[in-house]
């Protein structure tokens, strides 16, 4: 046999390329490179009738059911273009930016099952920018705000990286991930950025666990993205937006070396990192001196990976979401210290029936989001037919006869009342912005929900006929739950520091309840005065059960 290295190159390149660039041609048919060649394939759950909506800058590919979303996407994409392109216009003086192709998917499962994405069946991104070919695959997000965030993030990748696509194939210097992903996050409007970006960043600053620039060469996970955003934001504030495009260009020329930083920013890499850290120390002061929650409490459920959104389910039981045994969130039931997995369907939201015997949850396991009804005792799950498409959240009324369902049928979320047959009874909201997080009053006559007002999330109360705004301060008010004591418990905060608070629904008087330095999410008040919360610490979400100071010891049952 001739021992030419070239033949070995031949043998090595092909599998490598097949592996790196999935969706084989006829050579292997239907397998994606990231999957095992044995069998798992992409089988779309239903036939998709693809269409394209074009203008001079974007081509939006979508299928049945996404018509209105596609039109709204067009306006978001124009906004993205106007935000991002001017800072990178210098890259396009000779070759203009060709139309960006945006492929919309209704759900994660549709995204995974499409050949278009080039991703394996287990991929869990919100979008993928294939800047080499100017294609962008995006999953329609639960809310308009999320969709806007993802679209602007991914379009930033295309606009900023497209001029350098040949360098990716041809070798030479490469920009670090912190710049690439950080710019995408930086150009995303603050109100569309994932809320816990700053929560994770603040936690890392408090723990003195900021990553070095070397570590941020590769970015993965919420904290990395948060740090990347923060670093780019810092550079843009100190040196101007022009420096981002300049840095990107210099990275492609000189690589990630001190020379690049000195040339553009006049700082060494280490000096940049230290200046950034000092800036963050100054930015995150709120709550720094407060006590740590784990000085007083232990996580209520040991182990079980990421845990969140706990709610009582009758007879002392508690339901929560966890990614303990999969990459996705599933429902788990805690009962007398024992934990049972209830679903294997991927659950994004749920509500428990008043008697705790049933759970209705939202899942996109079938391709589109549907409501499913689960018997807690037997685990039997059935599809709950719904006259509206694309449910995002659901809240069971105290009498058990109605559901408040948040649906996204036109690109933004609205709240409807439906009966248990899924028939629409009444529209609660219908504005062009997102209305989310409905929660029933104990008498079942009113609903509290969240909508944005002047850049901040506020609580609104719907009394059966009309809505009124309950809160108005310049901070976020989220995740309301109407307690048995008549007060509304919610998450209050901004800049990565979220605390549990309660508001009087009549007077609007707010009392901050959590005294801890950590961010607390998804409060659920228990009748005895305790609160179940999801607490973010050191990259993990855990459920804690705690009592607000000065609120007495009135028993400790979960019911």
């Amino acid at each position, binding site marked *: 046999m001739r021992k030419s290295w*070239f033949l070995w190159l031949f043998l090595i390149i092909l599998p490598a390329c097949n592996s790196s660039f999935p969706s084989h041609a006829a050579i292997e048919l*239907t397998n994606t490179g990231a999957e095992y060649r044995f*069998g798992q394939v992409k089988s779309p759950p239903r036939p998709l009738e693809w*269409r394209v909506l074009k203008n001079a800058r974007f081509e939006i590919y979508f299928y049945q059911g996404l018509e209105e979303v596609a039109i709204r996407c067009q306006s978001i994409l124009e906004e993205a273009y106007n935000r991002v392109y001017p800072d990178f216009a210098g890259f396009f003086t000779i070759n203009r930016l060709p139309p960006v192709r945006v492929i919309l998917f209704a759900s994660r499962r549709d995204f995974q099952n499409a050949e278009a994405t080039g991703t394996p069946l287990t991929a869990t991104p919100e979008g993928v920018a294939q800047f080499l070919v100017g294609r962008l695959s995006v999953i329609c997000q639960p809310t308009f705000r999320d969709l806007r965030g993802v679209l602007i993030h991914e379009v930033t990748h295309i606009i900023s990286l497209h001029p350098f696509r040949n360098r990716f194939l041809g070798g030479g210097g490469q920009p670090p991930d912190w710049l690439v992903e950080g710019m995408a996050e930086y150009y995303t409007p603050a109100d569309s950025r994932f809320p816990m970006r700053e929560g994770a960043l603040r936690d890392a600053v408090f723990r003195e666990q900021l990553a070095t620039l070397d570590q941020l060469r590769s970015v993965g996970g919420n904290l990395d993205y948060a740090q990347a955003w923060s670093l780019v934001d810092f550079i843009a504030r100190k040196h101007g937006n022009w420096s981002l495009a300049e840095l990107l260009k210099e990275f492609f020329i000189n690589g990630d070396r001190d020379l690049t930083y000195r040339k553009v920013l006049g700082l060494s890499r280490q000096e940049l990192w230290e200046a950034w850290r000092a800036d963050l120390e100054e930015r995150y002061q709120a709550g720094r001196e407060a006590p740590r929650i784990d000085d007083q409490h232990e996580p209520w459920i040991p182990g079980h990976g990421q845990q969140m959104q706990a709610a009582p389910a009758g007879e002392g039981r508690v339901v929560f979401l966890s990614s303990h045994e999969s990459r996705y969130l599933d429902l788990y039931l805690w009962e007398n210290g024992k934990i049972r997995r209830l679903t294997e369907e991927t659950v994004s939201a749920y509500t428990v029936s008043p008697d705790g015997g049933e759970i209705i949850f939202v899942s996109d396991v079938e391709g589109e989001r549907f409501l499913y009804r689960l018997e807690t005792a037997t685990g039997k799950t059935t599809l709950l037919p719904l006259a509206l498409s694309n449910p995002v959240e659901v809240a069971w009324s105290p009498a058990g006869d109605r559901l408040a369902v948040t649906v996204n049928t036109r690109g933004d979320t609205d709240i409807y009342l439906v009966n248990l047959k899924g028939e629409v009874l009444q529209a609660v909201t219908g504005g062009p912005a997102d209305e989310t997080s409905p929660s029933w009053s104990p008498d079942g006559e009113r609903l509290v929900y969240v909508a944005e007002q002047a850049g901040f999330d506020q609580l609104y109360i719907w009394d059966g006929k009309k809505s009124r705004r309950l809160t108005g301060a310049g901070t976020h008010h989220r995740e309301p739950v109407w307690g048995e004591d008549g007060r509304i418990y919610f998450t209050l905060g901004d800049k990565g520091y979220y605390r549990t608070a309660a508001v009087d629904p009549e007077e609007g008087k707010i009392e901050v309840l959590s005294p801890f330095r950590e961010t607390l999410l998804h409060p659920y008040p228990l009748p005895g005065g305790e609160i179940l919360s999801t607490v973010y610490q050191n990259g993990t979400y855990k459920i804690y059960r705690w009592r607000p100071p000065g609120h007495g010891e009135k028993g400790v049952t979960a019911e």
Partner: protein
Amino acid sequence: MKSLHRRLSAALLLLPLLFSCAAPVWAGEEEPWEPYRPRLEVEYILPVIYYDGSLYALLYGRMSSILRDRELQFFLLADERTEFFSYVLGYTRHRYKWSTGINLYSMPVNIGPVWASGVWEKQTGVSLLAAYRRTNETRYTLRLQWEKFSPYYVASSFPEDPEEGSILGWEVKAIKDDFSFLAQKGTRAYLSVGGAFPFLNTGYRYLKIEEDWRRYYPLNRRISAIFSLRGGKIWGDYPSHRGFIIGGIQQANMSGLGNLTNQGTLWALADSTLRGYRLYQFSGDGFLLGNLELRTLLYPSSYYDLRLFGLLGTVFFDAGQVWKDSQALSTSPPAAWGVGLKFFLGGLLVGVDYAIPLDPGAKPRWHVSLGEVF
């Protein structure tokens, strides 16, 4: 010959253009959108030219429509010294549930695992393929393939004299795969029925049945038990070097015939496992092979926590038998037990096994594997 290469190169470079046609323009009267029409575009082309006294030119490229419902991959290699002109060209069309494709190839292929040469042969052929994707876990494939093969290197350890010839084959295969590596749970199985018939000077007529069934049982978050059962039988006249060749950890020999495909462009992983015996030790027209493995994740504590590095320990037992012309090749079935380590390196499993044959006359052996062995 070189001018022929040049002509072929030019023709193949132009081929992608044949698949790229202008999209007709249509606009609805009221809707602001238009129906999607697929059109091939270049995703990337990677050219490599190398000269060391002889000229080598390599071109690897990929074209696809925007939704990747049409795909064209091509690979061209001109090698002046050996005067081999190698090419692979695959065009695939995906529709709802169905994929169809055509595959043209001419290339040197190693029939054997990546770490040990078996037979190098030049394969030239064309295959028509179809797949019905019932679910993400199950599919059915149909393959019709003509191939001309001519061996040019044979490892001394290879048990058969490779033949030169051509074959017209077919295969129907049902595949189920709901295995989750992270959960260490599920089934991977296929049943294949295929064969060949003489047509226009092709020389083989045979019928072949082959099955592969593997089951993964998680015992707890770290420990899993894996059971595998493989078997196959060929009736008729087949190329002897493409029969069932068992021994050690290898991948290509059995499935080479089973898939009736060129193997060169496919990722090479081990497909048959009989540790404790040397590579290619048994060769025949029928086989049965079983494996039992107890696998423990030593680091980290959960498969879900696997990132760049992981370490697994295994205890295994392999046993099998190979028949030729209805005669068993060994009086007592070859069997071995052993222990091993698997290193999870950024998604790739690299295994090192130490196997002790039950046959008292046989020596223990080390084996290396890539990926999921079974």
